[in-house]
């Protein structure tokens, strides 16, 4: 093969970089660029077998060993051990057809957010989760943590039977103790405390009302540590009640984020609308503009058109100033609003960016009802109140505000702890919550709980709270449960997709039992309770069975938004005006993998790299480049973080783009229980404040080097591509005038014959403008393709096994770089460099364009991985899966081979799904329809950034996108002819923005 270089000289490549070492071109980075694999990733010959390294091993010794062992190995190879048995069903369940998947519609909640889903089961085992395509909001999409939650069903640490005083007991015994405690409390007029998660279910709410009627001394707290107490406080102040806010980005032309991370994968509805607005075919198409003011670098910040690093404590002041300026431009303030404490003009921290400030004001003013201001849940309460004010002023149509059930703040929890310590409660029941871990004052909480005479816990895996309770009542996983939820536009049903695996019950059934014991009359089980309620409320002509089949019943949006109280603004504005960003401030946010800690035991999530830091299995402290320089801190250095008498010693990572003076730390790590979670990272909850208005943003933090370093299990610098032209990003102006971005495709000359594809030629298009880097595709692929988890030590050696990764590139200045995310997976090259070098033809090309692997044939030479220009092949250096037993193995997809040690693997374009559709189409005597084959990553992508299909069909969506003007192939000059086409990223900065790349697409 010969590549003719372009005549105009070297390609004009934008300066993209991924790590600080690359940016400053340190000697380590230069030498690492020469080494294809990380030190330790590829062991020397004998290290593979656990023997000491042999220096100068002679040929004679080698041949001696080989000849002596060959015959013996052949004999041992005849061992009949390890044979399994395959037996047919003696009595096959009616629902199960071997080899055919069943799909059930169901739903679950995480915090206040509800995820309608479709669950795939094989031979009775739920194995894969996607969004429910019938839901009008989420439209078949869901979140990474939802997809990963199927693994929690098979968590070996699940409690399998009830426990009383630390010993396994039967249900009757444990329930009788609980009922006796409740009846005694009722008789004595003593309070009973019930702590649960958010109430988003109408039937659960009705059940709690019934329980309250049967037990008038009941006090209920709904606890969601990741929901943000400040948001709750601001809602109560501005609307007089708790509200839930849902962005409607399909209606937004200008979006202002005040530290809001709405593109992080949690909100599939927002991501879907974002993707739809960003997948532009032509430069004349309408695009939105995202402004981000934030302290820590968030995923939303990385997707901003303009991002301004600002200390979170100052967000409220900036947003109120915007309101005052808009009012000066004639936008009316709500009645009773007093902004006299706010000074007009450019805020001090934005003096150097006064043009941007003016552009932002102009954008908001012009967009009016099509502008929306979103505030991050963890930001201070006054920033939330300012956002509510701005939305009220603009009359924004791009969000819905609807009443919600109230959540307990840290203040409520503190009051409960005082009540427990003072002997107020006779019984306390914790249902699916873990305040012993999430309450900031751990010791205070534990001492208080110990004073309650009877303590019961309902949950799945014994946790820090369970350790303090006498009665442990094991709960069903949601895939084994009944339920229902409110959502915008539909009432959603939850139904079991498998019978209970263990001797567990639904939490609701436990409460129904308590109601019966307290009131003397039973309401049946929760299924009957739910059925009764639904049959009374279903619209005429709709059967419950149909609702279960669909997973929902569509309803008209009926909730009227509560009116905004203008008078609530004045105190918040005064507080915001007085705010100062002095010294260091710490932002505590829910971990990408762990959320509030409930997913800590999920190894899929622990090993999915954090979208920003690319860290796995840890929660290091992120700090700005400026602060790291001032304090002399290097990446991986241990630092000591002190606040209010609590000190944590943890590793540091230097985060480009983080605002000066801002530190950020993920919550949900440092769990004390769970086979996977225990000991991973440090618990940051003790650093949270007891003032709900600023619980997650803390000032007065002290930071110092603590001595020593930690090897970070970080994938950021793995599989480096040596600064080639891999990722492309255009402004709207460039897209209109020069969509190829001044790049010239070299003319490729090949001696190889063109491959022929008689029927299909599978290909993929990935739109970098729509991709937010949320990593939903990574989790979807892991679940679909039995991708193994390798653990932090192996990740540190660069041996992670993900078939798809998200490469995150920075461009520009360290203090505020532009960011582009690029999903990278096997490119299924037509002239694949990996195929040519395989000595046993284990990797070869299929007639429909797939670069396929024959695992049984692979002998593990790893030549293919060395020769792959994209570094997407993964080698099983150790036995990662064979020693797993039930229940862990039950999550495996039976259509995908589990790979043993010594075998190479990589993306297969979900060949099992292609074959499934092929067989179905052949059986029905028709051809495959466009869009009928979906890869797991495509189905999992909430922004629809990935499109898969037949390139031979000129009418297919994928074939049309390949011809788009933003299209390019990565490393096309190598001549490998990849089957994946990327569409260049788009940014829409205002005219003459700081980057000085103007566009005229302002709104």
């Amino acid at each position, binding site marked *: 093969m010969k590549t003719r270089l372009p005549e105009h000289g070297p390609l004009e490549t934008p300066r993209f970089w991924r790590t600080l070492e690359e940016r400053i071109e340190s000697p380590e980075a230069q030498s690492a660029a020469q080494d294809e694999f990380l030190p330790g990733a590829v062991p020397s010959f004998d290290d593979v077998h656990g*023997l000491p390294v*042999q*220096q*100068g*091993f*002679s040929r004679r*010794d080698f041949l*001696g*060993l080989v000849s*002596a*062992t060959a015959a*013996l*190995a052949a*004999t*041992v190879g*005849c*061992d009949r051990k390890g044979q399994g048995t395959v037996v047919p069903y003696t009595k096959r*369940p*009616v*629902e*199960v*057809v071997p080899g*055919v*998947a*069943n*799909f*059930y*519609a169901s739903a679950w909640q995480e915090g206040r957010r509800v995820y309608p889903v*479709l669950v795939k*089961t094989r*031979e*009775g*085992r739920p194995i894969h989760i996607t969004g429910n395509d019938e839901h009008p909001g989420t439209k078949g999409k869901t979140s990474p943590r939802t997809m990963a939650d199927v693994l929690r069903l098979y968590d070996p640490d699940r409690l399998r039977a009830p426990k009383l005083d630390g010993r396994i007991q039967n249900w009757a015994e444990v329930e009788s103790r609980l009922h006796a405690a409740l009846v005694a409390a009722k008789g004595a007029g003593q309070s009973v405390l019930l702590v649960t998660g958010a109430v988003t279910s109408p039937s659960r709410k009705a059940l709690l009302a019934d329980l309250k009627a049967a037990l008038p001394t009941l006090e209920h707290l709904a606890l969601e540590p990741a929901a943000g107490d400040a948001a709750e406080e601001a809602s109560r102040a501005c609307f007089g009640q708790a509200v839930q806010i849902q962005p409607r980005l399909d209606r937004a032309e200008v979006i202002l984020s005040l530290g809001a991370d709405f593109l992080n994968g949690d909100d599939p509805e927002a991501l879907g609308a974002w993707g739809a607005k960003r997948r532009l075919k032509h430069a004349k198409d309408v695009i939105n503009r995202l402004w981000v003011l934030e302290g820590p670098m968030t995923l939303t910040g990385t997707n901003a058109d303009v991002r301004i690093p600002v200390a979170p404590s100052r967000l409220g002041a900036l947003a109120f100033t915007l309101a005052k300026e808009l009012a000066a431009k004639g936008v009316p303030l709500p009645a009773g609003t007093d902004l006299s404490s706010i000074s007009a003009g450019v805020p001090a921290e934005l003096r150097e960016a006064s043009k941007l400030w003016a552009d932002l004001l102009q954008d908001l003013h012009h967009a009016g009802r099509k502008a929306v201001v979103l505030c991050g849940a963890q930001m201070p309460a006054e920033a939330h109140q300012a956002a509510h004010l701005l939305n009220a002023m603009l009359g924004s149509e791009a969000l819905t505000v609807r009443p919600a059930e109230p959540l307990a703040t840290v203040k409520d929890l503190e009051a409960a702890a005082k009540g427990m310590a003072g002997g107020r409660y006779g019984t306390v029941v914790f249902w699916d919550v873990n305040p012993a871990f999430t309450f900031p004052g751990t010791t205070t909480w534990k001492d208080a709980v110990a004073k309650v005479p009877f303590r019961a816990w309902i949950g799945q895996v014994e946790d820090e709270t369970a350790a303090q309770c006498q009665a442990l009542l094991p709960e069903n996983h949601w895939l*084994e449960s009944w339920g229902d939820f409110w959502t915008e536009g539909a009432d959603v049903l939850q*139904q*079991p*997709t*498998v*019978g*209970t*695996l263990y001797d567990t019950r639904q939490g609701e059934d436990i409460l129904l039992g308590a109601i019966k014991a307290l009131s003397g009359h039973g309401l049946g089980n929760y*299924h009957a309770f739910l059925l009764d309620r639904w049959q009374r409320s279903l619209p005429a002509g709709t059967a419950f*069975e149909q609702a*279960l*089949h*669909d*997973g929902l019943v569509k309803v008209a949006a009926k909730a009227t938004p509560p009116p905004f109280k203008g008078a609530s603004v004045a105190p918040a504005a005064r507080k915001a005006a007085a705010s100062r960003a002095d010294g260091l401030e710490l932002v505590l946010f829910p971990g990408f993998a762990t959320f509030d800690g409930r997913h800590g035991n999920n190894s899929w999530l622990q090993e999915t790299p954090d979208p920003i830091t690319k860290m796995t299995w840890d929660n290091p402290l992120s700090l700005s480049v400026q602060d790291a320089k001032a304090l002399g801190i290097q990446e991986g250095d241990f630092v000591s973080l002190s606040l209010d008498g609590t000190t944590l010693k943890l590793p540091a990572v230097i985060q480009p783009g983080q605002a000066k003076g801002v530190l950020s730390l993920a919550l949900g790590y440092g769990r004390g229980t769970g086979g996977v979670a225990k000991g991973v990272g440090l618990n940051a909850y003790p650093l949270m404040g007891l003032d709900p208005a600023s619980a997650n943003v803390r000032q007065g933090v002290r930071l110092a080097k603590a001595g020593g370093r930690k090897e970070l299990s970080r994938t950021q610098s793995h599989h480096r591509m040596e600064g080639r032209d891999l990722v492309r990003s255009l402004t709207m102006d460039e897209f209109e005038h020069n969509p190829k971005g001044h790049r010239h495709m070299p003319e490729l000359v090949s001696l190889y014959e063109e491959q022929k594809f008689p029927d299909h030629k599978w290909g993929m298009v990935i739109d970098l403008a729509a991709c937010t880097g949320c990593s939903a595709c990574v989790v979807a692929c892991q679940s679909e393709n039995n991708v193994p988890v390798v653990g932090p030590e192996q990740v540190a050696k660069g041996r992670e096994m993900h078939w798809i990764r998200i490469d995150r590139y920075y461009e520009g200045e360290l203090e505020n770089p532009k960011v582009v995310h690029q999903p990278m997976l096997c490119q299924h090259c037509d002239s694949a460099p990996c195929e040519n070098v395989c000595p046993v033809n284990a990797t070869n090309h299929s007639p429909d364009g797939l670069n396929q692997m024959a695992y049984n044939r692979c002998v593990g030479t790893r030549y293919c991985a060395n020769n792959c220009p994209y570094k997407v092949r993964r080698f099983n250096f150790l036995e990662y899966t064979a020693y797993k*037993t*039930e*229940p862990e193995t*039950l999550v495996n997809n039976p259509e995908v081979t589990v790979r043993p040690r010594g075998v190479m693997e990589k993306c297969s374009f979900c060949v099992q799904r292609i074959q499934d559709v092929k067989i179905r189409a052949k059986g029905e005597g028709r051809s495959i329809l466009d869009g009928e084959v979906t890869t797991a990553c495509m189905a999992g992508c909430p922004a629809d950034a990935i499109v898969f299909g037949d390139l031979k069909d000129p009418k297919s969506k994928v074939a049309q996108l390949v011809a788009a003007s933003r299209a390019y192939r990565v490393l096309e000059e190598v001549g490998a002819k990849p089957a994946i086409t990327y569409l260049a990223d788009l940014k829409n900065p205002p005219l003459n923005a700081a980057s000085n790349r103007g566009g005229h697409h302002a709104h």
Partner: protein
Amino acid sequence: MAAQDRRPFTDRLAALVAGPFLLGQRALALQWGESPGSPPEPPPEPPARLSLTPPEHAIKRRG
């Protein structure tokens, strides 16, 4: 030169003998049971098989 690079005789002998010895032990055990001197293997634990039951009253979307 090559002779200087070679490891001590005992190391080479150990490497030469260890592999064939261990494999030979396994090979003999296949035919005549456990060879004398080898530690007795603990009896394998019976696999804890979970019985999977279909969900009651659920309605599947397709399958």
